[in-house]
């Protein structure tokens, strides 16, 4: 699949934003962070800003952004529609929760319960985003249960890393934030490894023989394309990435998204401010780059069955 930057930035930025919101909500509910208005202001600005940036960037690839509101209508069948509804609804409890934190000076009790609602709504939104891809039967690399868990794990990982960095900045360091990071990181790494093994190893159900119905004649191969220039379908769905290139990018994703943040967060746990703060910020930055590479690969390595009509043997 063609890796479109608007979608890559949308899913990674909003994922980190929802992860950070969920961290704020749960940590407040469990009394792990005081309602410091400045911490709240910066954290909510970052979370809601990333989400809004992601939503806006996702409308860039629309042919008619001014009609985007119509996408709320088909939530009964469409995960894209459900995502729009969930993303919008999440702003309501998130706005209230942020208001309570910053202006009422409360984030426990009833406000803490609201924080849990925010976390649940954020998780639901990320789940809908992942299902847009996971529900497509046309792309074997996406149509798998790992995909939703991976999106959720990486949202928590990037969100908790940002939370950890802000906690250092405002002096609210708690051992629980690195704990969440390490759990999300280990789970995310395990999922990603399984994901790569899955897309490398399983047999494709669809082949050029099933796509043409010509299996009875023997092996089938494309002789002539229908057009001389690439058409829309080839541009959108025909993206191919070289094996060597993908291997290299997988390695970058592994280091930036998992290895470097793990090392930095562990170092930061026992460190003073002057070491802990830069470690936490660098860990968050590293993972943010890493997740963009991971998402780029998620698209670039995904093979659409329509490629069977344009020369692929199996998909």
């Amino acid at each position: 699949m063609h890796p479109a930057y608007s979608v890559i930035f949308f899913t990674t930025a909003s994922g980190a934003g929802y992860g950070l919101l969920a961290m704020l909500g749960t940590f407040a509910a469990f009394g792990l962070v005081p309602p410091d208005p400045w911490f709240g202001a910066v954290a909510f600005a970052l979370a809601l800003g990333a989400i809004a940036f992601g939503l806006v960037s996702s409308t860039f690839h629309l042919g008619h952004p001014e009609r985007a509101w119509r996408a709320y209508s088909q939530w009964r069948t469409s995960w894209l529609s459900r995502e729009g509804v969930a993303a919008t609804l999440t702003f309501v409890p998130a706005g209230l929760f942020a208001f309570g934190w910053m202006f009422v000076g409360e984030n426990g009790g009833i406000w803490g319960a609201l924080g849990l609602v925010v976390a649940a709504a954020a998780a639901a939104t990320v789940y809908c985003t992942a299902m847009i891809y996971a529900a497509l039967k046309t792309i074997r690399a996406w149509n798998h249960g790992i995909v939703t868990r991976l999106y959720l794990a990486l949202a928590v990982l990037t969100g908790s890393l940002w939370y950890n960095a802000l906690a250092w900045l405002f002096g609210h360091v708690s051992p629980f934030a690195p704990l969440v990071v390490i759990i999300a990181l280990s789970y995310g790494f395990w999922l990603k490894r399984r994901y790569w093994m899955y897309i490398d190893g399983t047999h494709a159900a669809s082949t050029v023989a099933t796509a043409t119905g010509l299996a009875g004649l023997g092996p089938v191969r494309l002789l002539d394309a229908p057009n001389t220039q690439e058409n829309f379908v080839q541009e959108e769905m025909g993206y191919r990435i070289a094996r060597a290139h993908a291997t290299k990018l997988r390695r970058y994703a592994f280091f930036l998204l998992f290895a470097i943040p793990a090392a930095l967060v562990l170092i930061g746990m026992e460190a003073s401010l002057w070491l802990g703060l830069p470690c936490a910020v660098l860990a968050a930055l590293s993972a943010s780059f890493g997740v963009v590479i991971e998402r780029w690969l998620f698209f670039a390595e995904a093979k659409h069955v329509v490629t069977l009509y344009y020369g692929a043997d199996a998909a």
Partner: protein
Amino acid sequence: MTALPPPGGRKLGLVIDLDTCVGCHACAVNCKEWNTGGHAAPLPDHDPYGAGATGVWFNRVHTFEAGEGAAARTVHFPRSCLHCETPDCVRVCPTGASYKRAEDGIVLVNEDLCIGCKLCSWACPYGAREYDHDAGVMKKCTLCIDRIYNENLEEIDRVPACVATCPASARHFGDLGDPDSAVSRLVAARGGVALMPELGYAPVNRYLPPRPRRDTPGCTGAPAALPEAASGGGRFLRWIDAMLSR
């Protein structure tokens, strides 16, 4: 509405005979010609006379080779929307622009609702949807709804443009939901197949596989070879023959 209509009823679609298709691309060209003035008009072209010509087409003819060695054969393969019974292209649409008609099963896009998110084209296994970059909306085969019900046309012309124009009669149009229709009987007689049935989209269109290859000619009543030319003729004729063949 992206909810699919209940199954049953009419299923209008195409039956494409891969045995007789000669790969002339006439169906694709007539489709483009009709539809650039029809329901989904226009079908844009970019750089149409240049080296990088691209554009929206609802029907494209691929050419495959099947089999090996001397038994290998060329199969021309026209590909367009299969008007699937359970198509995800419709279910994924967030706006309700994509829909499947209950009365005849035709899958259409309402261009006034489409936001151009392109998700439907990702959900189609058959590459049937092409995005119109100029209008910012998705376009696809309409099974020529503006021909098949068009009372201004002679009855014989009320078939999709691709069917009307095929010089080899390789394309057939009809109701595949009716087991007694001409197209259903043709599919039954020739063992018509659905494409990528494993994905569960239940395409309506059927493809008739090429007939088995014949290596011996059928009997037409004519002798298998011309009789040997007489080699007699006397010295004079042989002399002339020798002179002329110098």
